[in-house]
């Protein structure tokens, strides 16, 4: 079974992670643009980050046979920094046009400030203009309220719910997200957000329609193998194969394909691995023999 991790910050992960993910069946990842764990000091560092998402990181993934797609956007935390937010918004149109950019994201609410709401709305408008779906982060604090406000804003903007993926759902928010007609992401974290056992229960209760799971792995305490691990937990929990495959492959593919940027037939083909390729003076190899798939 092919697996897609629709939310993982690979820039902060190692080549061992890529190798283990590939071995576990992950053939595609989507890396949403987010913050760096600390606030950026100027808009220019967003730009180099966006370029690395469509450049170096995509290449690094391809070395392990993993297709790398990304979403581009101004994250809600840094939307609060007025001295750089406008410059970032202004540079988005160019990056939203790049190959392999399959959504605007992560956007949404963090502290639920008026400024966050304004930038959220502006980026929904950008998504409409560039024909892209949106990947929406929901806050850690006051999550239920944040999800309600997200759904209300998407509605107010007249944005299509089927083009909206609301992420980091819990038992409390999932029914709201599904009732609104949006796709529902679940971040499988070692201790917070969602775990395998609870996820199995949710799929048993709500089925697999419009439900996605991701590792949301980043530089924090997280696990890039959470998608394969949760797939196994679902199998052990007696969930039918067709439902598991919907959650870990067909649903994320269908959602991101709504960008019109994924060539469906090409997408079913594996990425050719050739570690002899080099990037910007760096190979991901450090002396070992390159693996070449023929």
């Amino acid at each position: 079974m092919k697996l897609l991790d629709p939310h993982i910050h690979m820039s902060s992960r190692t080549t061992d992670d890529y190798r283990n993910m590939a071995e576990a069946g992950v053939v595609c990842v989507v890396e949403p643009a987010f913050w760096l764990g600390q606030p950026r000091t100027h808009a220019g560092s967003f730009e180099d980050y966006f370029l690395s998402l469509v450049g170096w990181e995509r290449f690094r993934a391809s070395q392990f046979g993993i297709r790398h797609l990304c979403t581009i956007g101004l994250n809600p935390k840094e939307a609060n920094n007025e001295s750089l937010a406008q410059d970032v918004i202004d540079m988005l149109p160019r990056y939203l046009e790049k190959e392999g950019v399959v959504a605007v994201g992560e956007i949404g609410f963090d502290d639920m400030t008026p400024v966050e709401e304004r930038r959220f709305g502006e980026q929904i408008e950008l998504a409409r203009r560039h024909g892209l779906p949106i990947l929406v982060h929901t806050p850690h604090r006051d999550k239920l309220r944040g999800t309600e406000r997200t759904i209300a804003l998407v509605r107010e903007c007249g944005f299509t719910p089927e083009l909206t993926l609301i992420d980091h759902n819990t038992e409390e928010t999932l029914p709201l997200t599904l009732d609104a007609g949006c796709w529902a992401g679940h971040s499988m974290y070692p201790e917070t957000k969602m775990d395998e056992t609870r996820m199995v229960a949710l799929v048993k209760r709500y089925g697999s329609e419009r439900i996605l799971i991701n590792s949301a792995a980043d530089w924090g305490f997280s696990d890039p193998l959470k998608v394969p691990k949760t797939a196994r937990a679902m199998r052990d929990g007696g969930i039918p194969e067709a439902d598991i495959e919907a959650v870990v492959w067909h649903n994320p593919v269908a959602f991101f394909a709504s960008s019109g940027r994924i060539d469906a037939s090409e997408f079913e083909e594996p990425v050719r691995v050739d570690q002899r390729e080099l990037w910007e003076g760096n190979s991901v190899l450090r002396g070992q023999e390159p693996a070449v798939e023929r």
Partner: protein
Amino acid sequence: MNDELETMIASALAPTDAEWLRGAADELRTGDASRALFAFFAGAGRRARSLAPEAVGKAAAMLESMGGGSAVSWTPADVVRAVLLLAVIPRLAVGTAADLSRELFLRGDNAERCALMRGLGLWDAIAAAQVPVAVEACRTNVKDVFAAIACDNPYPARYFSEAQFNQMVLKALLLGLGLARVEGLGRRRNPELTRMVSAYANERRHAGRALPADIDLAIGPPETS
């Protein structure tokens, strides 16, 4: 020939993509060219998917005859990007055009960078001013980007200094790209290149490694035609 190329490409695209290309080219000819170009250039890849293969071959032959990369090197996306550049570049002063190329290179993805390299020789008037961006591209170790300038492209042999050309040839050798693909290598050979390549051969012998089969192509006096 620019108009002919644009018309031919537009007629070989699916209707919505053709409409996009005509609109983009018109905007580039009339509006604030550089700003509009960045988004068009980035999005050209997926518009080019509908391009008929015969049209790619025909366009590639035209672009080669205009001084661009060899016909074998052009992809559908490259061809569409060349049409966009042809709508802008001829209107610009030399310095502005060079700045634009640098901008497209620095903020482009791989495919954009390759397309830019294949088109560098298309504009005689400004071609010499593009050397810095071409040399910058040679610093990449993304094989595809390096190959777009070093291989199947007449630009380096025409415009690079001896030192720039020699570094490029040595890197092509190191990456195993096949020196037969470096255009004009025979006539640009020089004593310093012979020394550098011979030193590389020695280094490999000391390490117990085989020599690339095509190494001799870079050694010896320049060929005279």
